[in-house]
């Protein structure tokens, strides 16, 4: 069995009395797509923020490529990237200018060629010179994805990457992700509220509820374990349980 590229052990984050993430442990292997599922407030975003070094864990450890994130931040983050529907990029810069800035930030070599390749791959040619402020939400999502791919990461954190894309582009993005995984062994941590997409994309799925892992396995294993028809029904079960037990 190959060594995990990401190993999370007993990860906990408390904000005062509120525990956002509670003793979470999981691994991602090279070329694996791990789906992180859970209702709003389950701890998905906080987990990803800790993995990106944006939030300091209260307890537990994060290792990527065998290195501890708390002591090897720069080394690790150079090989990691993320994309989220909820982030933005400098609005007054053009799409290409933004990509150049990101490429320099991560020390990408042969920037012109890399930017050209990624713009082509994500079919962004027609708006590559457009000011970011003028992009549609779908184009903006493609820009944040381009930013994530540009640096040739070994691990990608994707928070609802296809949320604002039309079905055609969303399908292309999913194909691209699978292709990248196949060709470069890219590992992906994936969140989405589109359960069909999660079933299609994820090799394994982790369900979070109130900051804890409540289910783990392939989509089919989880569906069978809870005796539901599909992943959406499992999701609804956890979401309703969480809402009912909320103070």
């Amino acid at each position, binding site marked *: 069995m190959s060594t995990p590229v990401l190993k999370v052990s007993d990860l906990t984050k408390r904000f005062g009395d509120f525990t956002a993430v509670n003793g979470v442990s999981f691994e991602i292997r090279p070329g694996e797509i791990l789906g992180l599922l859970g209702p709003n407030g389950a701890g998905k975003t906080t987990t990803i*923020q800790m993995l990106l070094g*944006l*939030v300091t864990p209260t307890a537990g450890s994060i290792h990527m490529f065998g290195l501890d994130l708390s002591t090897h931040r*720069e080394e690790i983050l150079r090989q990691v990237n*993320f994309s989220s529907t909820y*982030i*933005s990029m*400098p*609005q007054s810069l053009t799409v290409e200018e933004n990509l150049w800035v990101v490429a320099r930030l991560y020390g990408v070599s042969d920037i012109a060629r890399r930017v050209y390749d990624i713009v082509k791959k994500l079919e962004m040619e027609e708006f590559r010179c457009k000011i970011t402020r003028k992009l549609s939400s779908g184009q903006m999502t493609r820009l944040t994805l381009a930013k994530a791919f540009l640096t040739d990461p070994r691990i990608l954190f994707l928070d609802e990457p296809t949320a604002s894309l039309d079905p055609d582009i969303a399908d292309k993005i999913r194909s691209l992700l699978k292709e990248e995984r196949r060709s470069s062994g890219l590992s992906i941590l994936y969140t989405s509220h589109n359960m069909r997409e999660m079933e299609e994309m994820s090799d394994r799925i982790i369900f979070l509820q109130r900051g804890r892992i409540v289910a783990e396995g392939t989509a089919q294993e989880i569906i069978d374990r809870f005796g539901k028809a599909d992943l959406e029904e499992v999701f609804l079960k956890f979401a309703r349980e969480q809402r009912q037990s909320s103070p």
Partner: protein
Amino acid sequence: MKLHRITALIVRHLYLYRRSLPRIMEIFYWPFLDLVIWGFITLYLARYQSQVPGFVTFFLGALILWDMLFRAQQGITISFLEELWARNLMNLFASPLKPSEFLTATMAMSVMKVTIVSIVMAGCALLFYSYNILIVGVWLMPFVLNLVITGWIIGVFTTSLIMRFGQEAEVLAWSMVFLFQPISCVFYPMEVLPTWLQMIAMANPAAHIFEGMRAVLGTGAPPIGNLAWAICLNGALLVGVVAWFYRTVAYCKDHGLLVRVGE
């Protein structure tokens, strides 16, 4: 005109003030500062009228140097605000970028701004008032360098506050530096200040620079003592404020504020 729509907007703004100390402070801040600055200038002119040689030489020189400090501070704070407004902080802090690299980049931006503004201001002063800033002589460069560092200190301090308290503290980007103006003794000598305020001004590197400038222009005396004070204070304060910036970043990461600061 409908009153309910007008009151809706008034209420919308009042909601902001209800929870925002920086906004409330700002209402009183500028009138208070104007009063303090112009009060001390008036006092200075009234007390030393016969001994003040060439107002233009003093005031224009002081104004140009003060603006260099102001732009140096803005170079740091506005660069940070640009990232905050663009909701780009998450992209930056989730990248391999180190806080030291972030600070160095903003400081470089600040030097560029100061250089451009200085050239324009000095050119305008020469063109409109036949005032040549170079009359300060060889001391001009050490004065400017020290004022830029003081500007950085205030800039990093303000940036840390905005990072810690979020967008509502944004007004500090423009107002904080003026809190230092009365105790920087830009337009009047330190001795005009009440004794207790002189003690505070002594800890401000900019006050020593402006004292030095007046000494050079007034008597031609080399401002060695003033420069030594300014350099020592700048060195100590810069180390302190950078350490505080690092602490603030750590605090924000611990409390999840870094990802929320732009919201």
